[in-house]
């Protein structure tokens, strides 16, 4: 959405995202898709070559795109085992909304359990 506003204000924008699905749905002017974990759109820390490779693709898309909505997906592999990467990007402590949802789910399960017990004592 920020990209759309800046583009409409007269800037040429390029978005580097791991969710090109959303970029396509929303209508982003130029998109580089990377299959990287959240919070790491340019690569791994201290990896100058990887970061530069992504940036160079973004720059060339800025130059090449002739129409809005172009999405270029990069074939750069994340250099970490999948399970580890999937765990590592997540915050140590669940975000407030996730904590709230987990609490709601716990309460609902508890209620269902209590309801089941009440039912069995009546029978």
């Amino acid at each position: 959405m920020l990209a759309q506003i800046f583009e409409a204000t007269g800037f040429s924008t390029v978005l580097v995202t791991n969710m090109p699905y959303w970029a396509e749905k929303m209508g982003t002017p130029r998109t580089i898709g990377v299959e990287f974990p959240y919070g790491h759109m340019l690569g791994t820390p201290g990896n100058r070559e990887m970061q530069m490779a992504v940036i160079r693709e973004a720059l060339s898309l800025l130059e090449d795109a002739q129409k809005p909505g172009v999405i270029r997906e990069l074939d750069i592999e994340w250099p970490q085992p999948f399970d580890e990467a999937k765990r590592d990007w997540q915050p140590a402590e669940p975000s407030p909304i996730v904590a709230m949802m987990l609490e709601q789910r716990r309460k609902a399960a508890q209620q269902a359990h209590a309801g089941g017990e009440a039912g069995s004592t009546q029978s």
Partner: protein
Amino acid sequence: MPVDSFKYLPGSIAAYYRNMPVQKLEPVPFTPLAKPLSESRFALVTTAGVTAGDQPPFDQEGERRNPMWGDPTYRHISRDVRQDEIGAWHMHINNRDILEDVDVVLPIHRLLELEAVGAIGSLAPTSYSFMGYQMDNREWREKYAPEVAGLMKDEAVDAVLLTPA
């Protein structure tokens, strides 16, 4: 190889995102790059919740009080920023790698290198950092994004590289 947009999400959240209705902006806005890259001035915009120096953190207490709310304000990040000045306050990602190397989301030092070799015209004096957890993006749309657009105009920015988080 097509990118799997849901690869790193837990299953329940992936399903939620996949089914969330989205209004596509039509027509998609488009501003062709007016100059060669080697003459273009860049700004960077991230939504990774980065701060610099003694700037106030993004409001985590407010989000704890109301989990549906995220701090919609933004911070100016100078091209002179040092890694040891970087703070990171996004509650939906692990901020450890940003605190080690801000360039994983806001590649200021990479752009300075590209400027030094003439691959881009320049990196503008200021880049910008938002915090991407916004259930309601009205304040971005109506207030903060137009404000940042104005600041970028003042610094003669041509092109913007954005990284969401």
